[in-house]
């Protein structure tokens, strides 16, 4: 079966432009996470969606960041007025039920470069 799909795989944008990153989770998975990973570092939690519950947005670094999940499936992470410090790999993961016992299945990420 298909895994978690993220697009684009690479995105280069100019400082100040807006970007949208897309995540297609595994079908039927109720939980969806977004993380950010700087080069060779650990994962920084951004936002968590679980079913129809209000998302946990506590990891979003500023109000330039927002995310939505439509119909309990596809999710979009939007970064407005991008800054150079936004450059990182953005990883999406889904799980069948709410973690922590249920493993996360990750996509290969979107590498964002802000010039």
């Amino acid at each position, binding site marked *: 079966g298909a895994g*978690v799909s993220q697009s684009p795989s690479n995105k280069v944008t100019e400082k100040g432009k807006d970007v949208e990153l897309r995540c297609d989770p595994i079908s039927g998975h109720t*939980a969806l*996470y977004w*993380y950010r990973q700087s080069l*060779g*570092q*650990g*994962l*920084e*939690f951004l936002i*968590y969606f*679980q079913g129809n519950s209000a998302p*946990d947005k*506590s*990891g979003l670094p500023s109000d330039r960041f927002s995310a939505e999940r439509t119909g309990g499936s596809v999710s979009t992470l939007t970064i407005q007025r991008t800054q150079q410090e936004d450059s990182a790999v953005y*990883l999406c*993961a889904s799980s069948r039920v*709410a*973690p*922590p*016992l249920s*493993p*996360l299945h*990750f*996509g*290969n*990420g979107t590498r964002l470069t802000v010039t």
Partner: protein
Amino acid sequence: TQLLEQSPQFLSIQEGENLTVYCNSSSVFSSLQWYRQEPGEGPVLLVTVVTGGEVKKLKRLTFQFGDARKDSSLHITAAQPGDTGLYLCAGAPLAAGNKLTFGGGTRVLVKP
């Protein structure tokens, strides 16, 4: 300060040697997970430990969950170049619901 502290940050060893990676916290976790990540890919789950004091073995990899459920370790016996990667521990503290937090990672390089 990260909720989950991993040590060491980087480990370079020769093929055939053993290594241990540590994951420590001051918080209590209902469970901890270990993932391995290779360049250009997302992390892949290796194991979940649930019970305090639990030891799980996955071929040459041994995972241990501390008695107090605040720490975990990963031991690799007779490391091979295929073990090279970024090892990440992750967990949700009891007070944090389902917000899964990751450690900073340990980069392991096994040289042939």
